[in-house]
C-alpha cells in the first residue's frame, strides 16, 4: 500500500513537472515577425495589478498576431521562491523564446544570474532598475510613477479644499505607503510636488505599513491619519496593505480613497468602490505593447532602461466613474497637469535619481502635519 502510494505520488510529481515545462509554442516563424514570448509570473495571475496587466497586454498582442505568448505562474509564497530561478533556467535553456519577460523588484538577482549564462537570450524585466546596463541582453522597463504621483497629488490637494462632500476645512491629505523604499518614495515625491503645486501650505500625512500585505495595520494607520490629522483623502500605495486606507475611509465615513496600479474602483466591492475617487495607473500591459511596437520598427533597447511615462501609455490616472462627478475645476486641474507633463512644461522630481530618495524624505518630513 505504502509503495503504491509513493509510486503514485512520484509519478504525479513527474507528470506535473513535464506539464510545467513542455507543451510550448514551437514554430514562431510563420508570419516572419511573430515573436515567441515567455511570460514568467513570480506570483499568480488574478492580482488585478501588475501581473494581470502584463498578461492583458500580451493577450492583446497575441490577438493581433504579433506574438505567441506562454505565461507560467510560479507562485508567490516562500515555498514557491526556489522555483523562480529554476523556471528561469529552464525556459532560457529551451532556447524557444525570442523574449522572456519577468517583473517586480523580487526578480533582478535571479535574472542577472541567468542572463549572464545565456547571452543570446533576450530578456525584459518590468518595474525594476537594479541592474540597468549590466547585461547587454536585458532591457529594464520602468514607469514614471513620479509623474503619476504628481497628477494624484494635484487631484488630492485640489479636492481637500474643494468643499466636496466629506471634505473638512483642514488642508491635509494622506499617503499610505507599503515600505519606505525608493520606488514607493518615487510615487510619494510626485504626490508631494503635485500637492504643493496646487496649495503650497498643504500638509501630507505619510505613513508606511512596512510590508505589502497587512491590511489590518494599514487600516490602523489610515484611521490615525483620518482621526488625528484630519486627513480627508488617502492614497494607498502598498498592495493589499494600502487597501486598509479604503477600509478606514469607508468605516469612518469621513474620508475618500485613491487607488494605485490598476483601476481599483473596478475591482473593489460596491461599498469600497463608492469611496474610491480615482486610481493612479501603472499600465505594464500598455508598456509591453509599446515595446513590441518599437521592436517591430527596429528600435531595440537591449542593455538599456526604458522609462515609460504618460505619452507611452505607461502611467495614467482614471478619469471616468467617480472622478467624473468631482468638481469640474478639480478635473480640469488634473488634466492640465497631465498635459503639462506630456509637453515637458513640468519636470516632476524623482526619488530614483542620485540623492532623490533623501530629497523625497526631507520634503516628506517638512510636509508632515
Amino acid at each position, binding site marked *: 500500500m505504502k509503495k503504491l502510494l509513493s509510486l503514485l505520488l512520484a509519478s504525479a510529481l513527474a507528470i506535473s513537472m513535464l506539464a510545467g515545462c513542455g507543451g510550448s509554442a514551437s514554430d514562431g516563424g510563420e508570419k516572419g515577425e511573430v515573436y515567441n514570448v515567455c511570460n514568467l509570473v513570480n506570483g*499568480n*495571475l*488574478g*492580482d*488585478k*495589478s501588475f501581473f494581470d496587466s502584463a498578461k492583458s497586454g500580451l493577450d492583446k498582442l497575441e490577438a493581433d498576431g504579433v506574438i505567441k505568448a506562454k505565461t507560467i505562474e510560479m*507562485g*508567490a*509564497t*516562500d*515555498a*514557491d521562491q526556489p522555483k523562480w530561478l529554476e523556471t528561469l533556467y529552464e525556459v532560457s535553456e529551451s532556447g524557444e523564446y525570442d523574449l522572456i519577460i519577468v517583473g517586480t523588484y523580487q526578480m533582478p538577482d535571479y535574472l542577472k544570474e541567468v542572463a549572464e549564462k545565456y547571452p543570446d537570450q533576450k530578456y525584459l524585466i518590468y518595474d525594476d532598475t537594479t541592474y540597468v546596463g549590466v547585461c547587454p541582453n536585458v532591457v529594464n522597463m520602468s514607469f514614471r510613477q513620479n509623474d503619476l504621483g504628481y497628477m494624484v497629488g494635484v487631484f488630492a490637494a485640489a479636492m481637500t479644499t474643494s468643499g466636496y462632500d466629506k471634505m473638512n476645512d483642514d488642508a491635509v491629505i494622506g499617503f499610505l505607503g507599503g515600505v*519606505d523604499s525608493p520606488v514607493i518614495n518615487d510615487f510619494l515625491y510626485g504626490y508631494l510636488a503635485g500637492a504643493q503645486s496646487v496649495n503650497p501650505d498643504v500638509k501630507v*500625512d505619510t*505613513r*508606511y505599513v*512596512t*510590508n*505589502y*500585505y*497587512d*491590511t*489590518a*495595520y494599514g*487600516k*490602523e*494607520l489610515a*484611521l*490615525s*491619519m483620518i*482621526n*488625528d*490629522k484630519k486627513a480627508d483623502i488617502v492614497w494607498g500605495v502598498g498592495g*493589499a*496593505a494600502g*487597501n*486598509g486606507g479604503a*477600509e478606514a475611509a469607508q468605516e469612518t465615513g469621513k474620508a475618500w480613497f485613491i487607488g494605485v496600479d490598476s483601476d481599483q474602483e473596478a*475591482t*473593489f*466591492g*460596491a*461599498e*469600497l468602490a463608492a469611496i474610491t475617487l480615482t486610481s493612479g495607473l501603472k499600465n505594464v500591459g500598455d508598456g509591453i505593447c509599446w515595446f513590441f511596437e518599437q521592436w517591430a520598427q527596429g528600435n531595440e533597447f537591449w542593455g538599456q532602461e526604458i522609462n515609460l511615462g504618460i505619452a507611452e501609455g505607461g502611467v495614467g490616472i482614471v478619469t471616468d466613474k467617480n472622478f467624473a462627478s468631482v468638481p469640474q475645476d478639480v478635473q480640469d486641474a488634473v488634466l492640465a497637469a497631465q498635459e503639462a507633463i506630456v509637453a515637458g512644461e513640468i519636470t516632476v522630481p524623482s526619488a530614483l535619481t542620485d540623492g532623490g530618495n533623501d530629497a523625497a524624505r526631507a520634503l516628506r*518630513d517638512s510636509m*508632515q*502635519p
Partner: protein
Amino acid sequence: MFEQIITMVFQTDFAFSIFRITAPILFAALAAVVAEKAGVVNIGLEGIMLICGLFGTLFSFWTQSWFIGVLGAIVVGILLALMIGFFALKLHTDIILAGIAVNTMSAGGTIFLLYLFTGERGNTASLTSSNILIPTIKIPGLHQIPILGDIFSGHAVLTYVAFLLVFLIWVLLYKTSIGLQIRAVGENAHAAESVGVSVIKIQYIALAISGILCGMGGAFMSMYYSQSWNTGLVAGRGFIALAAQAMGRGEPVGTMFSSLLFGFAQALRTKVSGVQGVSSNLISAMPYLVTIIGLVLYAASTMKKVKKIKNKDK
C-alpha cells in the same frame, strides 16, 4: 515631538484601538493557553487563523449572513485543530511539525481554495459588503457616558467575545471537571491515565477548543478588522499570540494582560508613526521592544519575590 505623541495618546480613540488590536491576538493566545494546558503545543495558530479567515468570508458571502460566516470559520477551525491532533496523537508525528505543516499548507492552499470557490486569486475585496461584516454594537447606557462610552462601547461583537472568553476559559480550566482533567493531562499524563482519564480524548477536546478560538480569531481578521481576506491577512499575529501565552505564564488572565501589552505597543506605534521625522522601520520594532521590557520587568519582580521568600526562610 513628545507633546504631539501625548496629545494623541490621551484621546479616547487610542484606548479604543488597543482593544481592537488586542482582540485577534487574544483569541489566538487563549487558543494556545488551552492547548498548552493539556500538554499539546498548537503552533499552527497562524495557519488555522488564515484558513478560518478565508472560510469565514466565503460562508458569509454565500449565505449573506455574518453569523453563519463566523460559525463556518469555527467549524473549520475545529476540523483543522483535530487534524493536527490526528497526526500528532493518532499517527504520532511530532506535534510541532504538524503545526508547521498547517502553517505552510495555509499559505499556498488558501489561494487554491479561493480560486476554486470564487475564481479570484488575490484577495476578496470584491466580495465584501457591510452586511456580511461582523457588526459593532453600541452598549446602551454605557454608550452615553462621555470618555468611558467612547472607549468601551462601539466595538465589534467578537471583540467583546474575546474578553468574555478570558473569563470563560478561566472558569472552564479551574471550575469544571473537564478543566481539571485538561490540567491533569498537561501536568502529568501518566498520573491522569492511572486514575482513568482518557488522555487522548482530553487532548482532542483541548485542541478542538483551541480550534474554536482560532476560528473566531480568523473571522475577526477577515470579517471585521481587514474587511477582506488576503494571503498575508494574519501577518504574524498567530506567532505573537504564542509569545503572549508564554509571557502570560499560560494563564488566561495573565495572557490577556500580555496580549493587551502587545496591543498597547502596536497602538502606540501607530500614533508615533504620524510624528514628523520618525522612521517607520525603526518604530516597527516597537511591539517587540515593549515585549522585552515587559519580560525584564516581569523577571525582575519574580526575582524579588523569590528573594523575599528566601529571606523569610532564613
